């Protein structure tokens, strides 16, 4: 129930509002926007250059990668699916064997430059994924 104190609290005076405060906020916001745009463009440029460098290093080694992947054919997938229907455990065991063989073949053919190329390509990809994920954070988390 409202009483004299409620009534006084509702009428409580405050210091006069500084008339230029909103303008100060707008100026600071404009500076922040300019700065963040500059940083964003800089990061994007670095990511594009990183990706391009990664592609440039990767191009001569594409053939090796394709050779490593070639054992995976439609006939083999069909064969594996039939095996899966007959005996799932055997099929999974077979698949893990194939995967291990493929990874070891790939690892044997890995050179420092290829690793570097993959790393350089992964960096912009990771940046893209993080950007996408960060835009999906809930409003509650946004209250910093």
């Amino acid at each position, binding site marked *: 129930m409202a009483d*004299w*104190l*409620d009534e*006084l*609290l*509702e*009428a*409580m*005076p*405050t*210091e006069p*509002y*500084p008339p230029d*405060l*909103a303008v*100060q*906020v*707008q100026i*600071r*916001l*404009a500076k*922040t*926007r300019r700065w963040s745009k500059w940083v964003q463009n800089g990061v994007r440029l670095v990511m594009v250059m990183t990706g391009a460098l990664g592609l440039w290093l990767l191009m001569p080694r594409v053939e090796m990668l394709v050779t490593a992947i070639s054992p995976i054919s439609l006939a083999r997938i069909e064969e594996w699916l039939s095996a899966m229907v007959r005996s799932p455990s055997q099929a999974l065991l077979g698949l893990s064997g194939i995967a291990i063989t493929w990874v070891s073949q790939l690892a044997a053919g890995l050179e420092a430059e290829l690793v570097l190329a993959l790393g350089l390509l992964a960096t912009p990809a990771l940046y893209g994924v993080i950007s996408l994920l960060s*835009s999906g*954070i*809930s*409003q509650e*988390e*946004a*209250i*910093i």
Partner: protein
Amino acid sequence: MSNSGEPGVEEAELIRRAQAGDPAAFDLLVERYTPHLYRVVRRLASDQNEAEAIVQEAWLRAWRAIHRYVADRPLSPWLVRIAVNVARDLWRKKAPLDFADLGGEEIVLPDHAPGPEDQLTRKEALERLVSGVKKLRPEYRMVIALRYDAGLSYNDIASALEIPLNTVRTHLRRAKSVLRLWMEAEDG
């Protein structure tokens, strides 16, 4: 401007445009809401400079987070909540709270205290009330500011301060109880 209700059509459009990254729309929201936000923040802050710094930082954070704001909710409680968090961060950086704890003071009541407005002019009573609010513990002052300056509901206060609804009620009741004693003691 609607402080606690749903945003109007024009305001909702401004928010939508701001969320799409339109700086001009956000600047219009700044113009509309800064006086209200300042009023609330000034009650929490120790001086005008601190209040202005909190308001500015709150708007910067709001700009960064506006695309995640749920547009059909009122904007004011959301802004107030950001400002409260900014104030808390600021106080954490400073030395431990430099506010007097009025709640801990012993206030001697006169035996037959007449109603304060019987003896005081309204202006004097309001001035005394303001000085009493300044001496409240920060958590009490916050609920007073959010309830009476921001006009927030108990639920919005609980959400803004991230405390249970019952704690809001308790803080508000205790704050008013302390203020009532303060007013009556001053009067006596």
